[in-house]
């Protein structure tokens, strides 16, 4: 034996647990104007500082500052705000609906609404989003019918996905929103392939893809980055770092020693690290990456730093593994309140208008929920049982035909 100390196995642990005082001292919050904005076609070796900074636009006073200020039209900002407020109203109502036994499962995106809303407004209808289950604000920003969502969540006779899919795992091709699945990560590479196909065809469509920081541990993430880099695919690869993957803090995904944006460096891709609760910063960074992709500059990896303010899903109780009041201490604040404050600071919004927006959204959601309930909630109403057997193949084979007959449908 040498006289070195014996080996020990390192297992990461978060700084605080239930009952402790929340501590985000590891989350550095630089000034809103601290980051330079490189040219969208700068070569990757000149961008290697970017993954370690934090792109922000909104300062403490709600002003838009710095090189990344996208100088957006207030009307566009109000639309973004509406998508976020609508998302929150929808989440609140449908979470309740689950608690009332109207469906089997639900997930909210509370605190992360800026990510889908802002990116959705950068990408076009012809582009394709490969979402996670927490990117519903992407659809909200495109006025996807609330009733279709409610019917999907209730798996009722009017469910656009024909009763086949778990609640919230939407698919909305017309809206540039790829089919969701319950297994995490497995579509990250699809986005790269979709983008490669656009390049192959000589089109100008791009793809955007999302993955949770927890899921960056999957091989799918690393495979997608390799292909995106090798083929310079016109794709924006986004990590939503909301600090938690069910009960596991981001250190379990490898966030203790480095940033998730810095994963890009090993693949020769630009990596941007962005304040995910700052609608303007999310918009600006996405715009940068979209420009690069559309100009044949290839893929960008973006880490959106945010916080999952609610439980993982209706099956989760975050009070079991993190301080109950942690969300209130999150240093990057709340995305809805920050955009609202900005619009108010610009003289483009008021408390009264905000209240009116909130009640308008609540009312729209209430009306959709009622309409969906009139069709039926889970178990009260379902699509024709034949739908269970459709679309397994384009044309059913004898097995399906026989089994459908056996079930009498």
């Amino acid at each position: 034996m040498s006289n070195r100390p014996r080996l020990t196995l390192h297992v990461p642990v978060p700084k605080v647990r239930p009952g402790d005082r929340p501590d985000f001292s590891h989350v550095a919050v630089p000034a809103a104007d601290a980051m330079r904005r490189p040219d969208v076609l700068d070569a990757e070796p000149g961008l290697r500082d970017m993954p370690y900074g934090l792109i922000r636009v909104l300062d403490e006073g709600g002003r838009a500052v710095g090189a990344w200020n996208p100088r957006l039209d207030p009307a566009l900002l109000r639309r973004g705000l509406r998508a976020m407020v609508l998302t929150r109203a929808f989440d609140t109502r449908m979470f309740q609906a689950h608690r009332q036994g109207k469906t089997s499962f639900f997930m909210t995106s509370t605190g992360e609404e800026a990510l889908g809303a802002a990116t959705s407004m950068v990408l076009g209808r012809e582009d394709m989003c490969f979402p996670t289950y927490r990117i519903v604000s992407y659809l909200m920003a495109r006025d996807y019918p609330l009733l279709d969502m409610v019917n999907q969540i209730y798996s009722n006779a009017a469910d656009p996905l024909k009763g086949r899919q778990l609640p919230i795992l939407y698919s909305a091709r017309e809206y540039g929103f790829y089919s969701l699945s319950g297994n995490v990560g497995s579509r990250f590479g699809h986005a790269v392939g979709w983008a490669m196909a656009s390049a192959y065809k000589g089109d100008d469509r791009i793809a955007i893809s999302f993955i949770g920081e927890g899921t960056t541990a999957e091989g799918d993430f690393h495979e997608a980055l390799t292909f995106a880099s090798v083929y310079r695919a016109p794709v924006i690869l986004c990590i939503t770092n909301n600090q938690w993957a069910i009960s596991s803090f981001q250190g379990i995904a490898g966030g203790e020693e480095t940033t998730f944006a810095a994963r890009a460096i090993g693949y020769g891709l630009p990596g941007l690290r962005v304040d995910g609760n700052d609608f303007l910063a999310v918009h600006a960074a996405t715009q940068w990456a979209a420009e690069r992709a559309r100009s044949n500059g290839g893929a960008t990896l973006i880490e959106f730093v945010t916080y999952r303010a609610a439980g993982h899903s209706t099956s989760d109780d975050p009070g079991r593994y993190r301080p109950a009041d942690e969300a209130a201490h999150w240093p990057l604040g709340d995305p809805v309140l920050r955009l609202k404050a900005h619009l108010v600071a610009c003289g483009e919004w008021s408390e009264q208008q905000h209240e009116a927006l909130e009640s308008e959204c609540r009312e729209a959601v209430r009306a959709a929920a009622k309409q969906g309930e009139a069709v039926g909630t889970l178990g009260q109403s379902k699509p024709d049982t034949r739908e269970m057997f459709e679309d397994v193949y384009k044309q059913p084979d004898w097995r399906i035909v026989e089994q459908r007959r056996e079930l009498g449908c």
Partner: protein
Amino acid sequence: MATMNMVRAINSALDVMLARDPDVLIFGEDVGYFGGVFRATDGLAEKHGLTRCFDAPISEGGIVATAIGMGAYGLRPVVEIQFADYILPAYDQLVSEAARLRYRSGGEFWSPITVRSPYGGGIFGGQTHSSSPEAIFAHVSGLKTVIPSNPFDAKGLLIAAIEDDDPVIFLEPKRIYNGPFDGRFDRPVGTWAQHPASEVPDGHYTVPLGKAATVRAGAAVTVLAYGTMVHVALSAVEESGIDAEVIDLRSIVPLDLDAILHSVRRTRRCVVVHEASRFAGFGGELSSLVQERCFYHLEAPIERVAGWDTPYPHAFERDYFVGPARIIAAMQRTLKG
């Protein structure tokens, strides 16, 4: 002795093995501080220490690959895959590595890992929280596949799996974690406390792998089942009044062929039941074995009752899930034959 549901029995098996063997360790997604999404590892990290039961990155391939490496070093890792539907990213590691390491190294290396995973439907979990993938493991030479149907067996089989020197896939029917669900969605599910198999010894014991249990003796027809379907079959037998013999296979690899043949040669009829979809399911193997070895004893064609050949559907779960009615109809067909 204590009264335990299946989750507690599994927790107790893990607790016993952590205490007994310093080479046993547990990891998987959310299994550490939180104790697992189904609470199977509740309290174990606190009791046995952070390096004995810890959280893993969301990487099923990584979990199984590192477990294999630890196993090759001499540990006995017990890993959890949060839902059996998510075991597929680890399939290559299980098939190409865990299953063949002993064989290809001429016995130089082996890895005695246990991979626990909740499986099966009946919880409105949709396509990715309901599937029954046992056949894809049974097909692989070098893997063992174990499926308990009650708390007593769950603990004894899990300890046997951990102590086994080969890699074991341990599939836990999550629908019966908290009570012996019998396929009747219109009635409340009883709790395990009313079931004799909820009496579980506190300490170490094993239920050997490869030994089926006759859970009901009968003379008219043999029903082969495992996991949740054991309870559905028993309920079908009770409702129909058919004097069926119900055999709980408990492990599908190794398979207790003697118990199966012995029963079918007496009853001369056989119904095979599983939740997994029918085509190329494990029922096909059971049916072939019985046909090959009991052909001259059989009075009727062997029947298979299984899930439909579709992905697991959300709204149609109760049309998909094999219930007592379909088992009764199959038993009746064999009795007419």
